[in-house]
């Protein structure tokens, strides 16, 4: 069976440095950091007191949600709702009035999350259980802490009638969601899929990472310097949050309705390292990463040297030099021919379950507008990355991007790769 071609027709995002796609484009172009110091983290004795969390969006909530919606939505659901509705509108798709019984039978959503409604668990469930006041939990705790909270809410907001579910593969979640949704459309099971990831910026989520001592704690006084992927002075990632969602569509469906097409997804790969060969719950098996990249390239039917731009996973930890080496081997290139590479996390932190989604939107924006954004804080490139220094976007690079790769690698030793080709009319 021939696989159907899949294109991107809509993008939506709410990120630590932008509350809309247009703001995100501008922030990426200008290299605007969304990393801030949080007094709450300092008050709670966190070692790392900086993070990325969307803010200033509250006044526009009524444009997206009813008062009834908001009574049963926590932060991760709000982020996913904003990004999903924005992507849907950006694709030129009509929003069905809630008072009608019309359903979009051919449209679905795979939108995942990493750690879920921790704010609801912390504020509603645990205190009431400890106080033995179960009734006081109210009616909406389950829908806010269930793993599928974000996709389920989008299903109702947009009257989706196809598969509606949430995947979870830690920091690979957003990219995995896109791959799964591509597959569904390729095999003719849906015409339109929302795909991406969301995560809340909750102190209780970030606490576990702080306890692991994997967060950036040396730049509490200078937050915009804290997220330093590929830097010699990187010493941990900055936790982020938000949502990034794509509208994916079969090419024939998009063309039939005259949709604007950003890009075609020409190759994908998902794999895992089995916690062998150096891989573990928290570290990647380098061989599995290289295999995933090579499989994505093979699936796309391109050569590694055809790639114009890499949106790296690159979190700002000890793993960055290994990742760069994995890109070289996976793409089959030399240090001199590694495509231009940057880390969107340098501006917005590591969005965990939302990372792959927000970074996919960043990739589409750079491809559409012809630039590779500055990878912040790379003025002191790590010694092991120096051979690749000409590929690192220390400053913004204006260039046409025809083919770009986005990969994510997550706890659990899991990997996801997506390859995009700019759509030429």
């Amino acid at each position, binding site marked *: 069976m021939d696989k159907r071609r899949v294109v991107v027709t809509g993008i939506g995002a709410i990120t630590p440095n932008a509350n809309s796609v247009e703001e995100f484009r501008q922030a990426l172009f200008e290299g605007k950091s969304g990393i801030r110091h949080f007094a709450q983290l300092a008050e709670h004795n966190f070692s790392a007191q900086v993070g990325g969390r969307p803010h200033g969006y509250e006044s526009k909530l009524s444009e997206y949600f009813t*008062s*009834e919606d*908001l*009574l*049963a939505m926590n932060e991760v659901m709000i982020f996913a709702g904003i990004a999903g509705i924005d992507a849907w509108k950006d694709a030129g798709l009509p929003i069905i009035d809630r008072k009608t019984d019309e359903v979009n039978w051919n449209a679905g959503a795979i939108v995942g999350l990493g750690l879920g409604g921790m704010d609801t668990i912390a504020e509603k469930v645990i205190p009431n259980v400890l106080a033995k006041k179960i*009734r*006081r939990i*109210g*009616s*909406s705790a389950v829908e806010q802490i269930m793993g599928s909270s974000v996709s389920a809410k989008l299903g109702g907001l947009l009257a989706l009638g196809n598969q509606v579910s949430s995947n979870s593969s830690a920091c690979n979640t957003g990219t995995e969601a896109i791959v799964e949704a591509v597959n569904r459309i390729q095999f003719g099971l849906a015409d339109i899929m929302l795909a991406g990831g969301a995560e809340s910026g909750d102190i209780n989520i970030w606490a576990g990472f702080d306890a692991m001592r994997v967060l950036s704690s040396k730049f509490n006084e200078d937050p915009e310097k804290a997220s330093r992927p590929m830097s010699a002075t990187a010493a941990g990632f900055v936790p982020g949050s938000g949502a990034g969602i794509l509208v994916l569509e079969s090419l024939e469906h998009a063309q039939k309705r005259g949709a604007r097409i950003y890009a075609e997804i020409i190759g994908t790969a998902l794999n895992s390292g089995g916690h062998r060969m150096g891989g573990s719950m928290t570290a990647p098996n380098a061989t599995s990463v290289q295999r995933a990249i090579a499989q994505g390239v093979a699936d796309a039917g391109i050569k590694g040297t055809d790639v114009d731009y890499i949106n790296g996973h690159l979190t700002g930890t000890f793993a960055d030099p290994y990742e760069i080496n994995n890109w070289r081997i996976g793409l089959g290139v030399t240090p001199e021919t590694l495509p231009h590479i940057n880390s969107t996390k340098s501006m917005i932190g590591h969005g965990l379950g939302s990372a792959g989604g927000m970074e996919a939107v960043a990739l589409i924006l750079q491809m559409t507008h012809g630039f590779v954004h500055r990878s912040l804080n790379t003025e002191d490139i790590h010694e092991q990355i120096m051979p690749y220094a000409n590929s690192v976007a220390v400053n913004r690079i204006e260039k046409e991007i025809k083919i770009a790769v986005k990969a994510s690698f997550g706890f659990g030793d899991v990997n996801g790769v997506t390859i995009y080709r700019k759509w030429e009319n």
Partner: protein
Amino acid sequence: MTENEIKDKVVEILKPYVRNTDNLGSVSNSTHIITDLEVNSSRLVDVILAFEDEFDIEVSDEEADKVQTIGDAVAMIKAKI
């Protein structure tokens, strides 16, 4: 507190849950919370919690189950304050 004052507070508490806002303008004691105002039945749990907070009362599950109209809510609350 008069019945009308209780009724006004009950309507105010219900407002964010009401899907059929057209019917909010003509609320009477016989207005059915679920069928006329189209409040999601599962949210009645939250409405009862809000009554408890607003009027400083306790409502048992059995009493909550009997509340179907605005008048039912007002009568139940009036008997407890």
